[in-house]
């Protein structure tokens, strides 16, 4: 397989000049990093709480259930939610942009 099999130099040049490509790159990178950083902040926030503030996590939220449980559950749900958000936006908006970039190719 040639190293750049698939993307011919002319096509690459054409795509690079397309303002839609710049838009795709900017939007997707920004959103992708936002999702990744949000996950890191939520996860390490949780880990730091576990490491440094056990009394807070031991606080009762009713019926003998401690705050640690809803928080842990929330981290799991946030992970699912973040992947869901990314798919939703990428499979709609970004794939739309990608399709328009492809259609613009001669």
């Amino acid at each position: 397989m040639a190293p750049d099999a698939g993307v011919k130099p002319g096509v690459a040049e054409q795509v690079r000049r397309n303002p839609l490509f710049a838009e795709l790159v900017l939007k997707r990178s920004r959103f992708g990093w936002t999702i990744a950083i949000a996950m890191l902040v939520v996860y390490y926030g949780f880990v730091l709480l576990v490491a440094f503030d056990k009394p807070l996590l031991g606080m009762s939220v009713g019926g003998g259930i401690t705050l640690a449980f809803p928080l842990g559950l929330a981290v799991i749900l946030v992970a699912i939610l973040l992947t869901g958000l990314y798919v939703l936006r990428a499979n709609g908006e970004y794939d739309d942009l990608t399709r328009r970039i492809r259609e613009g190719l001669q």
Partner: protein
Amino acid sequence: MTARLLRALPAAACALLAVPALAAEAVGQTEKQATNTTAIIMFVGFVALTLGITYWAAQRTRSAAMFYTAGGNITGFQNGLAIAGDYMSAASFLGISALVYTSGYDGLIYSIGFLVGWPIIMALMAERLRNLGRFTFADVVSYRLAQTPLRTLAATGTIVVVAFYLIAQMVGAGQLIKLLFGIDYIYAEIIVGVLMILYVTFGGMLATTWVQIIKACLLLGGATLMALLVLAAFGFDLTALSAKAVEVHPKHAAIMVPGPMVANPVSAISLGLALMFGTAGLPHILMRFFTVADQKEARKSVFWATTFIGYFYILTFIIGFGAITLVLTNHDYLDAAGALRGGGNMAAVWLADAVGGHLLLGFISAVAFATILAVVSGLTLSGASAISHDLYASVFRHGRANEREEMRVSKAATLVLGIVAIVLGIAFEKINVAFMVGLAFAIAASSNFPVLILSMYWRGLTTRGAVIGGWLGLIVATVLTVLSKSIWVMVLHNTAAIFPYDSPAIFSMPLAFLGCWLFSVLDTSPRATEEQSRFEAQYIRSMTGIGAEAAARH
């Protein structure tokens, strides 16, 4: 048991399969169980079904693309289930519920660590992997760099990760099966090895994926059923369940808060790092991204995988608390000293008996076996692909091998890997295998992951930088693991560990990145300039998928 679990767990810091390794350790000390007829009948049913699928898949597996990636025809939903299947090993099921059983809340901290890598993989890697790769992740790292050195590095990383992972699975499998089915250890190893060879050589990725999907459904179904039965026993009242658990557990209210397992913030943070990035460097997981048609389906795969895995971890938690309330209080499941019969990791299995009788016990046992079988098959396929596609076709034959030869090599490689797995599984029966999985994750995070992510994101990466950084991570991770307590003291019987920490990833991973960066920056050869100039075409393809369909269509 608790004390040993707590001591041993950090040793396996970054290991998804740390827990089954412990399971193996605990189980190994018990006698063979009486033959469980229900379990055997259900297991034989599963094997018959999967062999039928293998036969069906074999009719369709005529090309290399079918063999490696099921022709790229797996849907995002199916692939999500298969990824979840790869990830939810018997380890997570038996191990995490056992962890909850012994120490309560700490089990949830592990589950969360295993899950949070997925949104990162989704946002930063999934679509680029799909757009750039064809059969193995080496396709991606060698896209614009020199084929021979990078494929050699990637294939070595793959084979090492797969080998250590495989041994841990094989040993865990043999010991669980000995306990659950009353079969001798050696026969258990041979059964797993032979079935895995059959699935992979004849059915390739298509059969492996469907075996994984069926197993994931069985595991999710079985776990859901158990969780519902536990909740039903408490009138679907979570506070009643937790109150009862606090009342009967020897640690009482301490099970409701984080315990001593994550006492040290540094180790907690390094554990999280290793878990996250180790997952993103596991070859059998990365390979799954090439079985779907395009980036849209690749994203859907990650979403479904995350959803199923997250759901499953919530279930294991209810199962763990169910085991505290229903197994811990029943003397039928405990030995004279009050410990679980069959070892600490049998909590979920005995719970199945407690809530669903012999039938559910048989079903859950069969599911545990099926789970190991499916994971082992996925690992073997990715190891065989690295040997045939990267080493044989690209490195030895310089791309001049035809498809028939390449497939013949991959089937031979599967056979050899299967036999090696059986032999190593038997040879390592008595060993504590936790460190092997720890090593697998550390190497994945220290070699595969840095080279992969830099090749996709950093224009400046050159062959020289990638090769030096990658090998540096691989070697340092391996050496530090050998010098750490889990091998240097516990296996080699030296008095003190030379490397004082349990997981090398926190050192070897940054070192790999540093090596890649430094030797790329210092590389002023004409080849480096040319490689950097090819980044743009790669970038455009990775962002848009333009040019990728040509590779996917075959």
